[in-house]
C-alpha cells in the first residue's frame, strides 16, 4: 500500500480504467460475425466500419453493449443464448434506454470527456420522435437512425451521420420518404426547400458549418417544431439583433394576435431566401402585401421610407466605391479610404438589420454613420484625384522646363559644330 501511495505521489496519476483500444482484436463475437458478414449483402454487414467506431476506439467491444461471452469461439449457445446478460439485437423501442445505460450516466461519461452531455435520453422522450416511440410508433427515429449502428463516429468527425453537413441528408432519409411520413401529417419537401435556402446553400455548397442544419432550429435529441412564441428566439440564437429589434417593435403584438409565425411570416421557413432590399420596394413588393392591402397608405409609406433610406445609403456607398477605385487606378495612395468604405458597408448591414424595428426614424438614425463614412471616403478620393491633377500639372511644367533646356542645349551644340 505504501508503495502504491508512493507511486501515486510520484506520477500524480490516479488509478483509472484502461481505455486504450484493445490490442487483441479478435474475440468470439468478432470471429463469428466476420464470417457471417461474408454471406450478407453490403448494407446488412455489421462489421464493415466496426473498427472505426468511436466506442471500439475508446476500448469498448461487443459484450460491453450486448453482453454474452466473447471468450467462446465455437458454441453459439455458450457464447450468446445461454449467457444471462446477453442482449442481442436491440429493438427500436428499447434503444434509448439501451444507449442511455452509459450515455445517461454522468459518472461513466465523465471518464471519457468532461464535456459530454448526459441528457440525450431525457431530451429524446420530450421530442416528437420520443413521444411517438412511446406510443409504439417504431417508424420514428431513435438513436441508431441518426447515429448509425456499428460504425458510429464522433459528431465532429466529417464521416459522422450527424456532422453538420450530413445532418440534412440524415433527416431527409425519413422526412423526405412519403411512405414513412404518410401518417405523420407532415410534408416531405423540407429537404428540397432547405437545399435552395440561404442556410442550405451556405452549409451544403460552401461547407460553412456555422449555418444551421435541421438541428440548428429544431434541436437535436429533443427535436420539435418551433411555435409562434418561440420562433423569434430560435432564429434569434444567431440573428440576435434582428430578434431583439422585432421584439421591441409594434409588429410583435400584431403577429401574435394574427397568429403569424414571427420571422417565418416574412422570411418563410425551410426555403428561407437571401433577403433583398427589393422586399421593401412597394412597387414590386410581394412580402408586405401578404398581410397588408396593396393600397394601405400607412404601410406603404413606412415600407417606402425604409426602402429609400437603404437605397440612398447604397447609392452613396456606390459613388464612394467608384471614386476610391478611380483614385486607386491612378496610382494614388488611398488605403486609408478603404477603412471608411468598410465602415460604410458595415453600417449598411446594420441599417438593413434595423428595419426589424419597423421604425423609420430609428432606421434613418442608424444609417447616419454609414453616410458619414461614405462621405469621408468620397472627400478623401476627391483630394487624391485633386492631388493627381496637381501632379500632372507639375509634370507638364517640369517637362516644359526640361524641354526648353533641351532645345537650348541642342541649339548650342548645333552652333558649335
Amino acid at each position, binding site marked *: 500500500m505504501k508503495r502504491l501511495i508512493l507511486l501515486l505521489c510520484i506520477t500524480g496519476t490516479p488509478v483509472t480504467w484502461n481505455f486504450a483500444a484493445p490490442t487483441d482484436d479478435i474475440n468470439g463475437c468478432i470471429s463469428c460475425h466476420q464470417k457471417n458478414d461474408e454471406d450478407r449483402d453490403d448494407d446488412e454487414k455489421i462489421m464493415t466500419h466496426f473498427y472505426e467506431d468511436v466506442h471500439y476506439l475508446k476500448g469498448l467491444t461487443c459484450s460491453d453493449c450486448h453482453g454474452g461471452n466473447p471468450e467462446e469461439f465455437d458454441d453459439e449457445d455458450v457464447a450468446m443464448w445461454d449467457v444471462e446478460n446477453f442482449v442481442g439485437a436491440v429493438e427500436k423501442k428499447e434503444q434509448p434506454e439501451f444507449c442511455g445505460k452509459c450515455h445517461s450516466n454522468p459518472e461513466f461519461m465523465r471518464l471519457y470527456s468532461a464535456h459530454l452531455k448526459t441528457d440525450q435520453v431525457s431530451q429524446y422522450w420530450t421530442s416528437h420522435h420520443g413521444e411517438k416511440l412511446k406510443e409504439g410508433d417504431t417508424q420514428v427515429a431513435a438513436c441508431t437512425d441518426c447515429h448509425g449502428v456499428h460504425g458510429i463516429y464522433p459528431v465532429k468527425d466529417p464521416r459522422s451521420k450527424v456532422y453538420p453537413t450530413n445532418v440534412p441528408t440524415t433527416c431527409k432519409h425519413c422526412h423526405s420518404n412519403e411512405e414513412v411520413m404518410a401518417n405523420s401529417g407532415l410534408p416531405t419537401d423540407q429537404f428540397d426547400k432547405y437545399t435552395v435556402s440561404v442556410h442550405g446553400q451556405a452549409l451544403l455548397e460552401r461547407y460553412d458549418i456555422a449555418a444551421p442544419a435541421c438541428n440548428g432550429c429544431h434541436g437535436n435529441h429533443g427535436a420539435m417544431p418551433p411555435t409562434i412564441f418561440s420562433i423569434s428566439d430560435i432564429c434569434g440564437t444567431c440573428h440576435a439583433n434582428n430578434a431583439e429589434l422585432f421584439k421591441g417593435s409594434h409588429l410583435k403584438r400584431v403577429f401574435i394576435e394574427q397568429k403569424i409565425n414571427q420571422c417565418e411570416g416574412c422570411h418563410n421557413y425551410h426555403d428561407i431566401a437571401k433577403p433583398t432590399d427589393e422586399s421593401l420596394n412597394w412597387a414590386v413588393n410581394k412580402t408586405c402585401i401578404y398581410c397588408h392591402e396593396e393600397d394601405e397608405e400607412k404601410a406603404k409609406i413606412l415600407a417606402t421610407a425604409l426602402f429609400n433610406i437603404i437605397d440612398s445609403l447604397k447609392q452613396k456607398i456606390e459613388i464612394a466605391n467608384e471614386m476610391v477605385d478611380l483614385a486607386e487606378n491612378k*496610382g*494614388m*495612395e488611398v*488605403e*486609408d479610404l478603404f477603412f471608411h468604405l468598410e465602415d460604410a458597408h458595415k453600417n449598411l448591414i446594420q441599417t438593413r438589420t434595423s428595419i426589424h424595428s419597423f421604425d423609420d426614424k430609428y432606421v434613418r438614425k442608424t444609417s447616419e454613420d454609414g453616410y458619414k463614412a461614405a462621405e469621408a471616403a468620397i472627400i478623401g478620393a476627391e483630394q487624391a484625384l485633386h492631388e493627381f491633377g496637381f*501632379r*500632372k500639372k*507639375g*509634370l507638364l511644367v*517640369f*517637362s516644359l522646363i*526640361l*524641354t526648353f*533646356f*533641351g532645345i537650348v*542645349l*541642342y541649339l*548650342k*551644340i548645333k552652333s*558649335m*559644330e
Partner: protein
Amino acid sequence: MKIYDWLNQRVDLDSITKFAKKKQVPVFYGTVWYYLGGVSLFLFIIQVFTGILLILYYQPGSTTAFESVKFIVSQVNFGWLVREIHSWSANLFILFIFLHMFTVYFAKAYRKPREVTWYTGFILLLVAMFFGFSGYLLPWNELAFFATKVGSDIAGAIPFVGDFLLKLLRSGDDVTGATLTRFYGIHVAVLPAVFTIILGIHLILVQVQGMSVPPSQESLPPEKRKYMPFFPNFALRDLLVWLIVLNVIALLAVFFPWEIGQKADPLLPAPAGIRPEWYFMFMFQTLKLIPAHIWFIEGELFGIMMFTLGGLIWFFVPFFDKKAGLGIKSPFWKWVGVIIILYIIGMTIWGYAV
C-alpha cells in the same frame, strides 16, 4: 573668375580643363552607345540624392518600415515623388548598366589594355543588383518579404558557404526585422561605399585610357577616323540625354507609380505570384525549370553552379578572347553574347508569362 583663379592657384583647375578639352570622343556609327555609361552614372547620382531624402523619413524595423514608407508617400511633401523617382531610376539604373555592358561586349572594348575596366564594370553590375535586392526588402511588404526569403534561400543552397551566407544575409535563420535592419545598413552604407570606390576606379580608367572603338574602326587609317572634343561637345550631348532620361523618369513616376502592397506578415503563407525583381527573373525562371536532381546533384545547386560558372566565364572573357586583343575577329564570342541576350530576354518573358 576670381573664384576660379583662387581655386586654380590651389588645385590646378587648368590641368583638368586642359585634359577635358584635349580628350577626344570617336565619331562613328556606334558613338550613341557611349551615352549609356553616362546615363548609368547619372541614374546613380539620382539614386544617391533621392536615397538621402528617403533616409530622412524611413525607419527600418519590422514594425516601422512599412508604416514609414506609407507616411513618406502620403504625408511628406513630395515624398511620393522622391520614392517614385528612387524606385524607377533604380530599375533604369540596372537596365542601363546591362545595356552598357552588352554594347561594350560587342564592341570588344574589354580587349587589351582595358581588361581592368571590364572587370570593374562587371563588379559594378553585381553591386547594382545587390543594391536592388537589398532595397527591394526595405518597404517590408508581402511580396518583398517572400521574394527575399526565396532569394536568400537560393544563396543558402551554395555548397560549403551557403549556410554562412544565409545567416550573414538574414542575420539569423529566418527573414525577420533583424534582416531588414541588416539590409538597410548594407543598402545605405556598405554598397554605396563599395560602389563609389569601384566606380571611381572605373571612371579614372576610362579617362586615362580614352574611349575604346571597335576593331573595325581601329583598323581604319588615321585620316579616316573622326573625333569630337569631349568638352564641351560630347559633355553637352551627354547633358541633353540626361535631361531626356530625367523627363522619362518624371513621366513614369506620375503615371506608373509603384504599389506599396500589403504589409509583410511572416505568419501568413506566401501569396501567389511571388517573383523577384525583373533583373533576377531569368535566373529564377531557370531554377524553376531545372528538375529536382541532375545526375547526383540537386537541381537548385546545379543551377547555381551553372550561373556561377557562366558569370566567371563572362567576367574573364578578356582572358579567353585572345583574338580580340590581337585585332583578329572572334565571331565565337560574338555569338556567345547573342545567345546570352536571347536567353535572358526569353527566360524573363517566360517568367512573367507563367
